[in-house]
Each structure stands twice: as C-alpha cells, then as structure tokens.
C-alpha cells in the first residue's frame, strides 16, 4: 500500500499546487481587473477611510470636509452648509457612490492624480496627496439665491459672462448631503430611499439636470436668429399689430397673453413680449436659421460644465420642423419643441452679455495641494460663438428697454443699467413656469442670471415679471457686489 500512499501524497500536492496557482491568478494577476469591477465597492470604501481634500466656496467657506468618526471607516464627509451647496458639492456615499464636485473632482480630492511624487518614501508609502477644490461660487451669493427663491420649486443660476464662472447654482428643494454620506450605511440607505421616494425629487439638481419650456425668454434666441440672418434689424420689419397670428398649415391661431394686441419693430415686440410677432418671425426665418442659432447658443448639446451628467437642452433638428410651421411658430416663442435647463438660459443671457461668445461654464476656480500650492486653476475657454458682437449689442439695447419700460421692470438693479427678458411657459392647466433671464451692468456685464419658478398660478406674461424678476434682481445685486470688476 505504501506506493499508493505516496501517490496519494503526490496527488494532493498537485491539487494544492493548483490551488496556489489559482490564488496567484486571483490575488495578483487579475487583482486589478477585479478591483475595478463596477460591482466592487472596496475602492469607494478605501477612499472613504482615506484623507480627502476640502471643497471650499469662493470666499473660503468650507463646503465639504472629512472629519474623524468612531467607525471602521475612520473618516466621514461633513457638509457644514447642509443643503445650500448639495447640488454643487454632491455627496460621497458608500451605497450610492458620489455626485457633484465630489465625483467630478474625485481624483484631486482623493489624491489619485498620480503627479508630483517627490521622494521615494512617498512612492513607497503611497501617501495620497489630497487636494482642496475651491469653487467660483461665493457662499453669500448662493445664500441670497436660496433665500430669494424661498420655498418655491425652481432654480437660480448666476454666472460671470466673461469667463463662465458660476456665481450661484441653487435649486429648490435641495437635500442634506450629510446623511447620505454617513458611515452608518443603514441610515444613509434609508435617507436615500426617502429622498428617492419624495415626489418633489430633492436629489434632482434642477439647475443643470432638468429641462423646462423656456417660454418667452427664448424670444431672445429667436431675435438673435433674426438679427444674425440679416432679415431683422432694430427697425425692420415692422410686425403687424394684431391679437392673433395663424401660421401656415393650420387654422389654430397663436394669441398674445390676455388676448392683447401688439406689433411693431424688434425693440417694441421684445419689450411687451409679443407672441404673434415672434411666432411670425420664427416662421419667416425658417427652421434652419432658428435651430442653427439655438445650437450656436448651446441647445442640443449638454453644457460642458464641470459637474457630472448635465442635461441636454433640446430643440430638435431642422428636419423635425419640415412641413410643420405650427410647431416652428410655437417653438419661436419658447413652447412645444424646445426645452432648456436654467443653466442653458443663463448661458443665453451670458452669451448676449459677452458680445456673443458663450464661455464654458465652470464651478472650479482652483485646486491646491495639501501644502497650499496651486496645482490647477481654471483657464477661461470659449464654448461657442453664438452671434456677432453687433447682434449682441442690438439685443442688449432691446433687453435693456425691456427692463426700463417693459415686462421686466422689477429686474432693475438700482443705479445699474440692467438687461433682461421675462418668460411665462404655459403648462395648459392654468399654471405656468415663471422665468426671467438678464444681466448687468448692461454696458459692461459682470453677472448673468436665469431664474425659473415652477408651476405658478396664472398664465399672463406678467407672471415671469412678477414672480421671477424680483428673485433675479436680488441675486443680481448680490452677485454684482461679490463679483467686482
């Protein structure tokens, strides 16, 4: 039997050698593949336990930091401003991953950029060089935006038209990122489920991830298309004074708000937000001109903001308007085929304010390593050239008149020439979204703004001017003060 016993030994040795080979495959050869697998949460858990940089507002207010906790994870993210910056910083969650700046700048915050290894000890210890991310948003401007909007669903976006720096990015309702980022996984999961079940959808960053009918604020784009095409100027054509416009291929007339009568040249029709005239302008220009100009402002593309998953503001393609002048007419006044994020409408205002160039919007101002050295700062870049400077100048003049004597008088910042355009996107059930876009100072713009207040009672053109304009005015004033020349 001894021979068999020896062979049994050899057999078991071979089996165990096979186990050892397979262990090497799993633990060494293929380890990286398994570590990067999407179902594998260990990397998140690792980052959870590691030092992580801070997120700071433009004025230095701490928006996110890691604090020690009595838990196996050792560290927990803390958001001292609570819901105020939730849609900007996002959260850093064990169960839900990360969102906002926590996600888009994760490598810098966690120190995974892999640069600047300065000595061999650092290389061996793998000490992460965490970095702090400073934002372009001053905490007080964001706070003013929150307070001005109050407990109404909607959004406020303000940015510097000259370099695309975001100055306020608020939407209501918001949420507290602290709970979601808790090391208490059950509490975090419960909080997340509660937020997901909430009909008001607080997790949704309406400012850059939700689209709405832009209503009459879109007339700025229609006017820009007309001016750019050369077929419209400040003085001609003079649109007929009328209370209804019937586009070709339909008998359904487009009417003015409250059944009013209006008409005239561009400044006049913009001032009173004349539906009949802009509908006719859209039809006269044709789908190609209107869609091209809208796309030049950024429609049909996701705004390249440095936050995760921004929404596309769609207007459809030229072909979808073929033989469909009624839809074209409605689209020219911001209904039907066109939808926009609040951020995109702010970019329209900013493009006009910046002489026709739309800058890439961004929330990151600079990144400093843990020894305070700047390792990255934002280089302003042009996103699109929407219109020529002379077109922008004409639009600015017309929009200034809207604030001086038109529907947007409540946007006027005292002592500062202000340009703007109201909007009321009808929802068809007696409710409408109240909109306003604008910028100031009109002669040397430093702040552009867009405000939407969702589902307000009433469907007159006054809604935007009454509800949204005062909010935008407060934010404009605060942003101008915080963003000097």
């Amino acid at each position, binding site marked *: *039997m*001894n*021979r*068999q*016993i*020896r062979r*049994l*030994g050899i057999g*078991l*040795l071979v*089996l*165990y050698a*096979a*186990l*050892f080979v*397979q*262990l*090497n495959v*799993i*633990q*060494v050869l*293929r*380890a990286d*593949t*398994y*570590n990067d*697998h999407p*179902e*594998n*949460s*260990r990397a998140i*858990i690792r980052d959870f336990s590691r030092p992580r940089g801070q997120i700071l507002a433009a004025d230095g207010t701490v928006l996110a930091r890691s604090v020690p906790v009595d838990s*196996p994870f050792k560290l927990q993210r803390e958001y001292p401003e609570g819901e105020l910056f939730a849609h900007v910083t996002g959260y850093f969650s064990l169960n839900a991953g990360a969102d906002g700046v926590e996600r888009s700048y994760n490598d810098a915050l966690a120190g995974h950029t892999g640069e600047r290894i300065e000595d061999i000890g650092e290389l061996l210890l793998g000490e992460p060089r965490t970095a702090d991310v400073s934002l372009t948003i001053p905490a007080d401007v964001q706070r003013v935006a929150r307070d001005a909007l109050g407990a109404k669903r909607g959004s406020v976006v303000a940015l510097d038209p000259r370099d695309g720096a975001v100055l306020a990015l608020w939407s209501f309702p918001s949420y507290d990122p602290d709970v979601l980022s808790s090391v208490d996984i059950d509490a975090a999961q419960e909080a997340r489920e509660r937020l997901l079940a909430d009909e008001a959808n607080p997790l949704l960053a309406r400012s850059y991830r939700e689209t709405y009918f832009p209503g009459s604020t879109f007339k700025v784009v229609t006017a820009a298309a007309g001016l750019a095409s050369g077929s419209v100027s400040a003085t001609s054509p003079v649109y007929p004074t009328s209370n209804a416009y019937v586009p070709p291929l339909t008998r359904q007339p487009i009417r003015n708000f409250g059944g009013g009568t209006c008409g005239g040249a561009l400044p006049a029709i913009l001032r009173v937000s004349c539906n009949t005239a802009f509908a006719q302008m859209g039809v006269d220009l044709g789908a190609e001109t209107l869609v091209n100009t809208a796309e030049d402002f950024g429609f049909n593309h996701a705004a390249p903001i440095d936050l995760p998953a921004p929404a596309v503001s769609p207007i459809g393609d030229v072909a979808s308007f073929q033989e469909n002048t009624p839809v074209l007419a409605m689209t020219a006044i911001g209904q039907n085929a066109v939808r926009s994020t609040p951020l995109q409408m702010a970019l329209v205002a900013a493009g006009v304010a910046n002489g026709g160039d739309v800058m890439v919007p961004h929330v990151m101002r600079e990144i400093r390593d843990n020894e305070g050295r700047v390792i990255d700062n934002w280089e302003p870049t042009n996103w699109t050239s929407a219109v020529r400077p002379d077109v922008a100048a004409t639009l600015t003049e017309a929009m200034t008149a809207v604030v001086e004597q038109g529907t947007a008088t409540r946007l006027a910042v005292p002592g500062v020439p202000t340009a703007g355009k109201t909007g009321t996107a009808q929802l068809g059930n007696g409710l409408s979204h109240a909109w306003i876009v604008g910028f100031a100072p009109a002669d040397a713009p430093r702040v552009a703004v867009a405000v939407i207040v969702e589902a307000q009672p009433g469907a007159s053109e006054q809604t935007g001017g009454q509800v949204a304009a005062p909010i935008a005015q407060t934010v404009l004033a605060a942003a101008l003060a915080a963003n000097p020349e």
Partner: protein
Amino acid sequence: MIPVVQRLRRNTELGLILLGAVVTAGLYTLASLGTTANVPVNIGPFLGVVLALLAGAHVATRRLAPASDGVLLPLAGLLNGLGYVWIARLDPDLAALQAVWTAVGITAYVMTLVLVPKARDLDRYRYTFMLVGIALLLLPLVPGIGKTVNGARIWLQLGPLSFQPGEFAKIVLAVFFASYLVEKRELLGMAGHRVGPIMLPELRHFGPVLVAWGTSLLVMVSERDLGSSLLFFALFVVMLWVATERLSYLFVGGLLFAGGAVAAASVFGHVRQRVEIWLDPWAAATDQGFQLVQATFALAWGGIAGTGPGLGNPDRIPLVETDFIFAAIGEELGLLGSAGVLVTFLLMVGTGLRIALAAHTPFNKLLAAGLTAILGIQAFIIIGGVIRMVPLTGITLPFVSYGGSSLVANYVLLALLIRISADNAESELQAP
C-alpha cells in the same frame, strides 16, 4: 531509544505550540487594532486560554501517547487559532461559542486518546462502526429531530443543542472502511473481469462497498449536502484504491463520479445552478453569484500582502465565518496568508501520510491514509470552491471555520492520527 525520541518529539510539540500561540495572539491583537484601534482588553486572558487549551492537549499527549508525532497538534492549534481570530474579528458572539467548542474539541481529543489506547482496538468494532456511521448519516432525515439549515438537511436538533452528525460519520465510516477493506482487500484486488486494460473485481466482493457507498451518497443527495457527498465519494475511492492497490478503482470511481455529476446536474436544479455559477458567477453577480463574486473581490483586494487583520471588508461575503472564512483570511493576510494556510494543510497531509507509511499493520496504514485524505480533500473542496477551482459545495474548512461539530470531529480525527503514530513508535521499540 524511545525515551529520547519521546522527549524530543514532546519538546518540539511544546515549542511549536508556544510559537503558534504567539502568532495567534499577535494576529488577535492586530485584528483588534484594525477594527477598533485598540489593543484588546482581554489579550492577557486570551493568550492564557489559548495556551491553557493547547497545553492541556499537550500534557495529555505526553501522558497518553508520549511517542506520537509532535507536529500535528501544533499545526491544528495554529489553524484553530487563525480561524478563531477571524471569527472574533467578524462576529464576537460566534467567537465566544467557538471558544467553548474549542474546549469541547480538545476534551474530545483527550477522551479519544484515553478510550483508544491502541488503534487496532477499533478494528474489533467494525460493524458497530458501520451501523453507527449509517445511523449518523440517516438521523437528520428523522422527523422531529432533523433540521434544515440553508437548504441542507444535515442538522440534528436535540433541545438547545444542534450538531451535524455527518461530520462524525466521516470518521466512523473511515474506520469501518479501513477495517473491512483490509480484510477483503485480497478478494477485491483479484481481477474477475477484464475490460481492455482495466481489471474489474468480482461483483460479490465489491458489492458491500458499492452498497454502503451508494447508500451514503443517496442520503447525502436527499439531504442536499453536496460538499459532504463529494468528500465521502473521494474518501471511498481513495481508500479502495490504497487497499487493493488497483488503479482501476480510481478510474472506475472517476467515471462513476463524472456520470453521477452529469446526472445530478441534469436532475437537480440546485446542482445545475452550482455548476452554472461556478462557470460564470459574474452573470449573476448580484444574486446567486454574489457570494463567489464577493469572495473573489475580497481575495483580489488582499493582493500579495493583504489589507492587514481587521482592515479589510470580508463581512460583505455571506457565510464568511463558516464556508468562506478562507476568503476573509486571504483578504486581510493576502497571498502570503492564504498560501500559508495551504502550506499548513499540506504539512498536516504530509505528516498524516508519513504516519500511514510508517504504520506496521495494514489496518493502521489504511486508517491513517483515510483520515489524512479526509483532512486534505475536505480543505481542497472548500478552498477550491471559494476560489472557483471546483464548483462550490458548502463544507467547513477543517479547524478554521466556525462550527462545533466540525471542530470536535476534526479533533477526534487528529487524536486517531496521533494514536496511530504512537503505535508506530511503540512497535518500532518492540521490533528487534
């Protein structure tokens, strides 16, 4: 000559036990530092208890089997300690129970040495062991005392106590097979029929083995305990082969196994599912494959050196304290630790087979080989299952996994191997 060998072996044993206790206490401290950032408050008493338990076993061995092998007990103690550290790190409540089971296991070890002064004594109770073995296998099927846990009906519930009789059945049946096969091995080894190059024995000699083996397999399948079925199967085939010295039994056994596996996979849904998950756990990464996928993540995350005790996340793996404890150790000690566990089992297997080689009677030889095969194959089945070498079948990792029945049964197995090694040394003395 004997007193010198005895002293040498016992002192080696004591030294290795001390080394194992230091390793265990060190890992226990590190795991506590990893999970709570504190040195465990009970580290003093802990080290004391570990040492007391193993020293108890050592003293008993000194008195009851002084000439026995000096390596097996420290190796078992090391695995036991390693398992305890991870059970304590994963679930302190289970750890308290495991400590009690360790004490029971060591008591069983001592009792076995007391009750079996010579391994050949077991030979006398051959059919008693057969009946006891079959009874142990059948007990969980008895209504009222049988209990189903995680889909397998392998538990006995007697009042507050529950245990898996199958863990003991494997030892008892190994004794029966050693005894029976040694007597019949001449007959079984004779070629009755010849099919090509393969010799087949007369069916009437082979019959009883086939029946016992078929019965136990049937019981296993009806209890849904695939791991134990596989272990029994391999044990029978190996013992038959070693006893008869006929390679044909290995071939026939292999063919029977392949046929049985294919049949089981086509007939039983739960068997087929195991095979599918084995082939591709990633397709079901969030449900049936979750456990295997998480174990793979754990091992991969451990890499070469591991995260350090208490610093990994093995608690994401279901059943990590029992069937999957190897993955927890692999994550926190890395390839170095997981390979260390493999080496420890290989050392035990090597020592067990050396004892078998040195045995002076065929019964002792076959029993030692069988018991060693149980240990080596069982560890292979579960480690191979966890790292996807073979389909996963739930079974404990000897001495390491949480589980009272398993721990106590394996200490009994250890005592029998120790007893055989003591017999070897004593007959060497008597031999001229």
